[in-house]
């Protein structure tokens, strides 16, 4: 839009400039025409001046001493200048021509009937009093009359040139020449076709006399012409023209009152005189009026043409802009449409706008690349989602394996009130390999195990399953505790290939005697919970973790439990549980909890620890499985009293060296 405005401005300014220039050209042309007219008129008048000068020379030479000679000469002059000179007279001073003649003024003039003669010296016409005689005589030099309408013989517009002549230094006579002006002025006032072309079809010329009266005005009769003056119509122009200078002005056309350019020039009739100081009189002034509209026809035409061309250009420009904008916006609209479709999920879309615009092509390529990338990412996402789901499935499977293998029915041995066992596992999201187990080897031996397979996920869960099964199978096969663990280790070493290892607490409790034989294979020490204040870790019996190497020995220790004593097994998931501040749960905190709940039923003990760990971890995601197991011996069963006396010897529980 600003470009269009600028363009319009340029067109207008340029058109206006042309318009001004052309109208100035028009004004200059009319001025030139005016000058030319004036020069022509002046030439004619100047030539007319020569006639009386010649007559004066003849007269002064004395050749025309008789009336006959004089009149013959005058006739000859008029004949010779017919058409130009209307009449001529020689008016002598009293007794100037002949001493007997008081006045002598022969006057020849042309009429329709031919050359007429009239003696101006007549009783009713005293020419000595007339201006045409007095003015040149008084001035002592030739004088032009003002143009006048001759109501005598001529009935036409005339101008008279009067030349005084001298004999022997004394004023002798006046020679006049009447020049018919009307025709000449009309001729001067008429415009040729060529001129009209320059200054406009309706241009015209008019001439005024020194009083502002019209001497020539188109389509007006000479009589009528003299009755009006320019001042009536345009005083401004009248005073300018009567100043005796030439010029051009824009003013009111005296003919129709519209604005027009008027070029004017004075018609200066220089009397032949040595007295150059006398300013030439502006007896007449000629004006060329070019009515504004015709004078500016061309200019206006040019102006209109330029504006039209400008507007057409502007229209074309707009058209071009619209076409270009369409050709750009169409593909962009298509792209926008495509973007919407893509947003709606149609990633199969391939855009081909067919645009040749570089930017649009770039955009198009970008779009296609984007959809392609999106497509690929969607596929990838779908793939990873599937993978993730599969993995979640694996994790769930692993957790299910783990959980399904663990005995979860409590009380576990309703037939054995002397023992009470409770265990819990809280698996992590990505399951680890914690496990526990308890089973009776026979009526009086309870086997308990709590293990932790290093690593996570399905391999750990499977390894745990294998470990647990091996332990149970080996234990049920009736081996001693150390033997059982050693065998399990050897078996596991064959299975383990991925750096798997298992830490294990393995114990066999004699439910009759309260004797606890126990082996710690790389595991955290369990706690012994007795009636005393102290929470004692069950030390000793240190052995390496399972599955590290074959052929290792797994020593055991024996403890004698007092009735009511409990042992608490746990995995490092408890002590290494992290708080939101990344602090460990620590064995100390565990001891504190156990101290409070040590005399509670085993189920309460395990739950109390689990709850405290959960409180400690708060929102933090559990990183590892958490397993706890509590086993309490309540003393020898009544139906099968202790057969051995040693059971009471060792209270509270203490280590028995084997």
């Amino acid at each position: 839009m600003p470009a269009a405005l600028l363009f319009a401005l340029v067109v207008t300014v340029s058109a206006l400039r042309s318009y001004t220039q052309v109208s100035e050209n028009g004004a200059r042309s009319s001025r030139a025409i005016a000058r030319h007219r004036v020069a022509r008129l002046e030439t004619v008048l100047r030539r007319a001046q020569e006639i009386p000068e010649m007559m004066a020379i003849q007269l002064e030479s004395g050749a025309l001493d008789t009336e006959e000679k004089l009149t013959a000469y005058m006739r000859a002059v008029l004949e010779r200048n017919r058409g130009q000179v209307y009449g001529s007279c020689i008016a002598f001073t009293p007794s100037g021509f002949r001493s007997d003649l008081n006045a002598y003024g022969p006057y020849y003039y042309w009429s329709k009937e031919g050359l007429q003669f009239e003696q101006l010296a007549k009783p009713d016409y005293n020419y000595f009093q007339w201006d045409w005689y007095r003015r040149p005589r008084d001035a002592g030099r030739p004088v032009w009359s003002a143009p006048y309408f001759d109501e005598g013989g001529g009935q036409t517009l005339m101008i008279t040139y009067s030349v005084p002549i001298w004999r022997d230094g004394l004023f002798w006579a006046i020679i006049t020449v009447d020049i018919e002006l009307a025709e000449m002025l009309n001729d001067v006032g008429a415009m040729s076709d060529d001129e009209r072309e320059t200054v406009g079809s309706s241009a015209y010329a008019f001439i005024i006399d020194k009083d502002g009266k019209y001497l020539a005005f188109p389509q007006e009769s000479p009589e009528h012409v003299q009755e009006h003056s320019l001042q009536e119509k345009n005083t401004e122009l009248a005073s300018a023209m009567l100043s005796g200078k030439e010029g051009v002005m824009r003013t009111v056309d005296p003919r129709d009152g519209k604005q027009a350019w008027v070029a004017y020039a004075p018609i200066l009739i220089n009397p032949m005189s040595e007295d150059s100081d006398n300013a030439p009189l502006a007896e007449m002034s000629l004006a060329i009026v070019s009515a504004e509209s015709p004078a500016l026809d061309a200019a206006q035409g040019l102006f209109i043409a330029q504006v039209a061309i400008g507007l057409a250009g502007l229209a074309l420009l707009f058209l071009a802009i619209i076409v270009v904008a369409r050709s750009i916006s169409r593909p962009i609209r298509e792209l926008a449409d495509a973007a919407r479709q893509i947003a709606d999920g149609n990633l199969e879309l391939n855009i081909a706008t067919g645009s040749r615009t570089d930017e649009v092509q770039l955009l198009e390529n970008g779009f296609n690349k984007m959809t392609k990338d999106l497509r690929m990412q969607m596929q990838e996402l779908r793939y990873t989602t599937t993978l993730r789901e599969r993995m979640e499935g694996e994790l769930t499977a692993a957790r299910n394996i783990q959980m399904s293998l663990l005995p979860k029915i409590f009380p576990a041995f309703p037939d054995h009130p002397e023992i009470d066992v409770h265990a819990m596992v809280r698996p992590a999201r990505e399951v680890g390999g914690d496990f526990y187990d308890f089973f009776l080897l026979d009526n009086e031996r309870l086997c308990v195990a709590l293990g932790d397979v290093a690593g996570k996920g399905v391999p750990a869960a499977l390894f745990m399953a294998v470990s647990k099964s091996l332990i149970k199978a080996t234990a049920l096969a009736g081996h001693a505790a150390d033997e059982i663990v050693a065998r399990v280790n050897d078996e596991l070493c064959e299975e383990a290939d991925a750096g798997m290892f298992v830490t294990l607490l393995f114990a066999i409790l004699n439910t009759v005697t309260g004797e606890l034989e126990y082996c710690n294979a790389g595991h955290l020490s369990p706690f012994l919970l007795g009636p005393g204040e102290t929470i004692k870790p069950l030390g000793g019996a240190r052995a390496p973790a399972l599955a590290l190497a074959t052929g290792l020995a797994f020593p055991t220790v024996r403890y004698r439990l007092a009735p009511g004593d409990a042992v608490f097994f746990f995995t490092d998931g408890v002590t290494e549980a992290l708080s939101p501040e990344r602090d460990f749960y620590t064995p100390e905190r565990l001891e504190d909890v156990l101290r409070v709940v040590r005399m509670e039923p085993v189920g309460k003990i395990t739950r109390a620890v689990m709850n405290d760990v959960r409180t400690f971890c708060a929102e933090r995601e559990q990183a590892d499985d958490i397993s706890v197991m509590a086993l309490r011996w309540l003393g020898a069963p009544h139906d099968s009293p202790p057969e051995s006396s040693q059971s009471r010897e060792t209270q509270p529980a203490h280590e028995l060296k084997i």
Partner: protein
Amino acid sequence: MQIKEEKQGDVMIVTIDDHLDTASAPGFETRLLGMIDEGERKVLIDCGPLEYVNSAGLKVFLLAAKKLETLGGQFILCALAPSVLMIFEMIGFTRIMKIAATREDAQRSFRAA
């Protein structure tokens, strides 16, 4: 986890970060087993900065040790902090892995082998 590696002669010395747990173990495992696959046969783990290791981290050591053992290479850990050494002992790693007090001791062990 930041792992620094430097080669001294034919011994690749790997210095590990202060924590080797479930989060950092997989990256360490990839790196460690990767260098063995690339041909490193003498690997020394400088556990100087190590403050905490859990079973996931221990598993990496075990894997590397077993792998190098089958390949006829050597795997030595050195500069274990007392708490870390305690865990190693508890698990039984001290029985199946070479553990040196300092780098120099470890280098001597490599040369002696």
